[in-house]
């Protein structure tokens, strides 16, 4: 909780799959970011941060008043411990604020190395106060609750354990108890709990129910995505200390847009003591503009039911309409890294770090060598006429979906 305010708010923790995403999340209002190093995390396919990038990340985040948490949340085998102790010490030295850990062996190693404070990962499936108290005695200062926990559970766990409590507020969800799924291990030879999850739960399956002998095709293990926007009041009332946005592998557009929505909603609460903003529909609409599956409140209020199953193709949610982030601003133009084709004269939206989206028409579209263009192609850099509010890392997108 951010203290010394009339209406204290939880910390907003955003994913940072790369330095670019980290900067975007911080600039759009993340109070903290989480990221992975080259080892010991759960996203082996991600770019992840090397030591130099970690230093840059901490320096940038701290300069903007944000914290940095590093994930060390793989379940390690004995042979995986090589370098962990030194890495934990180095993280402390760099100024990393916390590490997110699932494995008791890792907790012990980080403590012995004098590493940063320890947050228990959601992978450890901490679902009750009894478990939270045990983990507290093991040396953790915060628990990231399992996604099966409700907001009411969170309040009890926080009060009874005396630990800080972090909960997911937005993003993709494991259908299984996190840390208790090994489908990839046995079907792909990739340890899901050491970074190799193949997302087999998103596959379509043919199910033969024994008793009826009927076969049905279904994406029966695929969960809808979590959206907690309309439950922010309940998160605050439960005393949740930190709201976590899932998605280190997701786009810059996602990192910026989702962070902005929740940061602005929390900022509104900070001033007014409620979430009764005229902008609530606008914020909800913003969350529909990023790539997602259908949304659910999962188990935040009641245990997730049948309507929390996403019975469809992975990614069939609304497509992102991002034109691209601004990567530089020159004397008279903004340079956009094009993610989606747009044409000269097209109506675009500029998404400022704070405040409402600005609609404008792209004009003076040209290449970096100032050759006039009529339209862009994804993957290229182009210049368009500078408009007020443009700066590096600001997102520009199409108005239509």
């Amino acid at each position, binding site marked *: 909780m951010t203290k010394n305010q009339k209406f204290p708010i939880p910390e907003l923790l955003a994913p940072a799959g790369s330095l670019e995403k980290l900067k975007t999340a911080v600039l759009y209002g993340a109070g903290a970011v989480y990221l992975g190093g080259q080892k010991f995390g759960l996203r082996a396919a991600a770019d992840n941060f090397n030591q130099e990038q970690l230093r840059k990340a901490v320096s940038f985040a701290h300069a903007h008043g944000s914290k940095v948490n590093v994930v060390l949340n793989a*379940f390690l*085998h004995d042979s*995986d411990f090589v370098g962990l102790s030194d890495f934990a010490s180095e993280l402390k030295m760099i100024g990393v604020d916390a590490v997110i850990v699932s494995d008791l062996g890792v907790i012990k190693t980080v403590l012995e190395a004098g590493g940063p404070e320890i947050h228990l990962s959601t992978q450890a*499936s901490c679902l009750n*106060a009894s478990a939270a108290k045990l*983990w507290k005695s093991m040396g953790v200062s915060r628990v990231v609750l399992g996604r099966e926990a409700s907001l009411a559970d969170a309040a009890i766990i926080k009060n009874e354990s005396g630990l800080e409590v972090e909960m997911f507020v937005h993003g993709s969800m494991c259908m299984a108890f996190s*840390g208790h799924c090994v489908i990839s291990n046995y079907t792909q030879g*990739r340890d899901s709990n050491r970074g190799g999850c193949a997302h087999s739960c998103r596959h379509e*399956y043919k199910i033969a129910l024994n008793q009826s002998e009927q076969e049905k095709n279904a994406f029966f293990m695929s969960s809808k995505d979590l959206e907690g926007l309309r439950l922010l009041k309940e998160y605050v009332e439960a005393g949740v200390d930190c709201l976590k946005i899932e998605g280190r592998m997701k786009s810059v557009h996602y990192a910026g847009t989702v962070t902005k929505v929740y940061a602005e909603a929390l900022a509104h609460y900070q001033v007014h003591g409620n979430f009764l903003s005229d902008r609530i529909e606008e914020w909800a609409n913003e969350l529909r503009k990023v790539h997602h599956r259908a949304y659910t409140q999962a188990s935040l209020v009641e245990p997730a039911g*049948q309507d929390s199953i996403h019975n469809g193709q992975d990614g069939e949610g609304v497509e992102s309409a991002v034109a691209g982030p601004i990567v530089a601003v020159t004397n008279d133009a903004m340079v956009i890294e094009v993610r989606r084709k747009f044409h000269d004269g097209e109506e675009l939206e500029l998404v400022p770090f704070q405040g409402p989206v600005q609609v404008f028409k792209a004009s003076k579209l040209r290449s970096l060598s100032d050759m006039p263009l009529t339209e862009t192609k994804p993957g290229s850099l182009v210049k368009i006429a500078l408009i007020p509010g443009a700066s590096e890392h600001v997102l520009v997108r199409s108005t239509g979906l």
Partner: protein
Amino acid sequence: MKLTYFLRPKDNLKLLAKKGVSEVIIGTLDHSRLGEFNSQQAIEAAKLAKSLGLKTVLLCDALVGQREFDSFAKSLSEMTPFFDAARALDPGVMQFLFDHTDIALHFVADTGNHNLVGLKAWEDYFADRLERIVLSIELSKESLNHIIPKLKTPCELLVLGRILLFHSPRALLSPLSGEASDQSWIDAVGASEESPHKGFPLVENKQGSFMFLAKDFCLAEQLKDLRDMKLDFMRLDPTGCEPEVALKVVDDLLSDQPEKAKDSWPNLVIRGFYGVNKSDVLFKKLKNPSRDKTHAIAEVLDTRKGDPVTVRVLDGAKLHSGMKIEMVSPDGKKKQIELKWIRDLNGNNLEQANENMIVSLPPIGSATCKALIFDVNNL
């Protein structure tokens, strides 16, 4: 090495005792993931087992949410006096048993506990109340050899039975049957439509939904290894096996030729990761080696045929006019050039470009977006 047996309501306890089973694990619908007894049946089974000289273990390996915790704990307290030991997976349940009962404890460390440092920490925490550690079948022979002798606590390992792949608290099968979930037991079989994998046994019960591997786990041929490691308990989970077949498997496992159990078992079996666990070696293939930025100094952002190439200077790097660079495209193609000039986005010539700057470089034939730039002198 003693044999512990996961008991089902249809099993004959008297015959199991006669065959030489040392201990039975009794799971209830309310407290365990896959136990099939109701509480009263479980107590009756425990009483009978004890009268037959068998040791009894109450299985309470459910993961328990806060909202159910108090009632779960209360009913557990009512059960434990009838058993010799209780085993749990949820650290909160272990803590409850530790604080509020006197029963001997078994810690189910079969998920996410794959290293000696962590296992010893659990052992230290539960101290002399901990009677056994149930090890993970993801541990290789080498790991087991390393871990078992260094733990003070007796260890147990599954030697024959189903491999649990997935456990969700949500009811995932009842929606397909067109009926509301009434927490009854539903069995099914699944086949992936997007991979060659099929024959996954599926279960929905009061604790949620489960998926198992089509092939079962079997170390019947490795029992000598396990004895040499001084493993104390081998576990048989006869799920999917008729009672009379399970008795034959018990006979085999306790005989001089335990490998026969593999032939007696009704399903196909694998050794899983016992030989070696290389489930992390494929990770490097998840990344394109041509995209390894460790030593790169810049990344190509934009290029058009014949035009200057636009790059971003990477963290901690610099470009300077006159330096010799090598460009490596995402498909691995390489090209070296000398930087005759560097320009900023306003077209001004620069002697040097610092980290994070976006600058133009002379045209490079076959340049592609995302190509990486390296300093030839540092290759």
